[in-house]
């Protein structure tokens, strides 16, 4: 039901800079006379939540370009919705930027060739879900310069919102936060909904991840351009960019790039996990709550990630397809962590070998909401914001004690659910009771409950099982 709920917000919020966290907020440092007023103004935030170790060391490193792997594996389904339809055949030569698979309907996206080369195979490869999926394998020309060879610029002035959305669909941008919702579809207001605010999510609250942070520092202008197009589609008269207060350089860069008409503002929010989730950031910035079972659009809000906006702003005027993305590669088992522009389809093995990883566990996304993967043949896709490698020390298992009713999970849950009670019920497989009485479906799986549990009970993990069970049963019925 609620993929859009944590759409842009849920997964890939990371930020940067452990050091600036301790310093006062940006206005406080830049303008000493405003110190007094900042004492009385409460920084926007949500209730509950946690303060994990942030590990944002890569936030100070500039984005670097990553080399092309000898072979790229480009899945046809890199977004939520219908997979793209391949229009190439084995042995065909493809140019970087060329459409190699077309969108299958409105709720789908085309795929562009991430490199110039030859289609070697269209076959099944492993995916992060564990299932096999169809992908186009491209053997990359070694001698080629790999510049973008195919662009399809279109006039954008004077288009209506829907028309602009259709053009936007052709560049193939999906949400960069982790839920990979097709951006054009997300921006179109559902029937009867009036969008009054576009929230641009620059919170990046997940530990380790800093790609959004670097994008805000280095590509603020792209973000502003993207916001402009996005507002034309969704019809929002204003946009608010929410950034956690541990990224003062990002805030400064954004403020410097703001349009002069005042319709776009930057709002600094407290550094707290999961500040970047859709519900919590909306609540922090606007004080609005998304009613149970409804979508953000029902309260006049549409949310997009800063990196999504940056890519829309960069690609849409050029008519260029999505062929690469910025990915944070980090973790204790990575020798050269950083933010890299990685061609889509780059296999993780190539990526991790190049940064000197030697761990025993690889995670796509952040450490709070990401997913461990079982194969290094899985490629980088549009929704991968981070690749983390953990070693033996981090993966050591912990003894699980019985629940002692300490209530820490209740104090941590940003949705104010009752994870204690749900944990006890899930142990007895009372899944229906969890859904009927304790709002299981409202859990967006941020993982705060498991993070704080002194008994090391895998709470959110059990909730996922419960949700899957109920979903499967509903499907079967």
């Amino acid at each position: 039901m609620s993929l859009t709920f944590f759409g842009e917000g849920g997964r890939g919020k990371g930020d940067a800079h452990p050091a600036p966290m301790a310093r006062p907020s940006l206005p406080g440092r830049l303008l000493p006379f405003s110190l007094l007023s900042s004492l009385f103004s409460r920084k926007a935030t949500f209730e509950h939540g946690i303060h994990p170790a942030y590990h944002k060391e890569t936030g100070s490193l500039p984005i670097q370009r990553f080399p092309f792997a000898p072979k790229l594996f480009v899945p046809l389904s890199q977004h939520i919705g219908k997979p793209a339809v391949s229009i190439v055949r084995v042995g065909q030569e493809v140019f970087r930027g060329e459409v190699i698979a077309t969108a299958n309907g409105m709720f789908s996206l085309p795929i562009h060739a991430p490199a110039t080369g030859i289609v070697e195979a269209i076959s099944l490869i492993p995916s992060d879900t564990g299932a096999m999926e169809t992908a186009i394998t491209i053997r990359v020309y070694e001698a080629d310069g790999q510049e973008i060879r195919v662009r399809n610029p279109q006039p954008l002035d004077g288009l209506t919102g829907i028309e602009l959305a259709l053009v936007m669909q052709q560049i193939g941008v999906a949400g960069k936060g982790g839920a990979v919702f097709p951006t054009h579809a997300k921006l179109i207001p559902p029937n009867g909904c009036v969008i009054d605010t576009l929230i641009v999510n620059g919170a990046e609250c997940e530990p380790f991840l800093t790609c959004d942070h670097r994008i805000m520092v280095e590509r603020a202008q792209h973000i502003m351009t993207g916001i402009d197009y996005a507002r034309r589609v969704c019809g929002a008269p204003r946009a608010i960019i929410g950034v956690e207060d541990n990224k003062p350089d990002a805030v400064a860069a954004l403020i410097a790039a703001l349009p002069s008409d005042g319709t776009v503002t930057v709002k600094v929010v407290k550094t707290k996990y999961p500040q970047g989730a859709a519900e919590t950031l909306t609540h922090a910035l606007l004080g609005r709550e998304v009613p149970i079972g409804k979508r953000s659009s029902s309260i006049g809000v549409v949310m997009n990630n800063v990196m999504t906006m940056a890519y829309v702003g960069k690609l849409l005027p050029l008519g260029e397809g999505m062929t690469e993305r910025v990915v944070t590669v980090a973790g204790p088992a990575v020798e050269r962590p950083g933010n890299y522009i990685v061609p889509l389809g780059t296999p993780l093995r190539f990526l991790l070998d190049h940064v000197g990883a030697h761990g025993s566990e690889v995670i796509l996304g952040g450490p709070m909401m990401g997913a461990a993967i079982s194969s290094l043949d899985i490629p980088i896709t549009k929704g991968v914001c981070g690749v983390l490698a953990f070693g033996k020390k981090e993966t050591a298992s912990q003894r699980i004690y019985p629940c002692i009713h300490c209530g820490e999970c209740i104090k941590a849950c940003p949705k104010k659910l009752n994870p204690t009670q749900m944990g006890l019920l899930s142990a007895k497989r009372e899944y229906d009771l969890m859904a009927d009485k304790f709002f299981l479906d409202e859990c967006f799986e941020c993982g705060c409950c498991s993070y704080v549990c002194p008994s090391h009970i895998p709470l959110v993990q059990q909730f996922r099982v419960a949700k899957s069970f109920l979903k499967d049963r509903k499907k079967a019925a």
Partner: protein
Amino acid sequence: MSQPIELRAAPYQHSGSDVPAIMRNVVYAMLPICIFSVWQYGLSAAALILVVTLACLLAERINNYVSGAANTLSDWSAVITGVLLALTLPPSFPLWMGAVAGLSAIWLGKSLFGGLGQNPFNPALIGRAFVQAAFPTAISTWVPAFSPNRFAGFIPTTLTAPFMSPPDIAHWIKLQGMDAFTGATPLARWKFENVSASSMDFLTGQVTASAGETSAILILLCGLYLAFRKFLDWRIPVAVMGSVMLIAWAFHLAQPARYPSPSFMLLSGGLMLGAWFMATDMATSPITPRGIWLYGALIGILTVMIRYFGGLTEGVMYAILIANAAAPLLDQFNQPRILGGKGGKS
């Protein structure tokens, strides 16, 4: 790099807190109270704390053995039960009865319900309730603090042979040269003689009481340590103390001659130890925000009611046990409003 071999589910980061650390810190917080108790009552108090704690550990280990479960001594919860139980017993309590209290606390109060976290009642209080019913005389026999010979030997009752009644110690108390000692707790003296003790005596521990209930100020400091380390929920003791103060103040205002001052109610008996160390037992207290406040208030109300209108001189133990029983109900009827739930701003 080689193929990943670990495949866990998110989240991959943890706060680092764990159950033994919480339990250990509660034990640390009780150590100053134990030391003060030993300084006040000498060898007998030391022996009592030791024997009751060992009895609890023994009961826990036997239970592990019988049920085939892993060793649970390492979670430190049985130590808490033992020390806490010993602190609520009179210092002259015979050791064998202390051992009975320890065994019944773990077996009747905890193992019976499935061990750590499963017990509906505070195990230490179950142990105390058991021996209060079994040995009514021994549990209401009090001895003076700071007797000059307290480190030279045991109080005669301490070494009573198992299954025997303790000897009369009136003669021994006379020998200690403590003429002012009356053999009754301040609460009993108030109830039966209408004599109120001074607050200063309570704060510094110059009163007749159970082994660990004498110094209100020490209990407060130890409790505050736990509250600041977030090992106990500060709302519970605040609610207990606040409600006791409020009700006692109202009664005192109406009939100052009949009812004692609020500070007397707050500092006397087991209220401080109960509010900070027993009512806050995580397994037996509510977890919902409103439920927590109501739970604390319920303990306060019941304590005052039992002390004023009940047959017993002290009501903290039963007040907490009754509130323990009510905790699941308090939770059930006070589920917090979730984000996006009815009544929110949207």
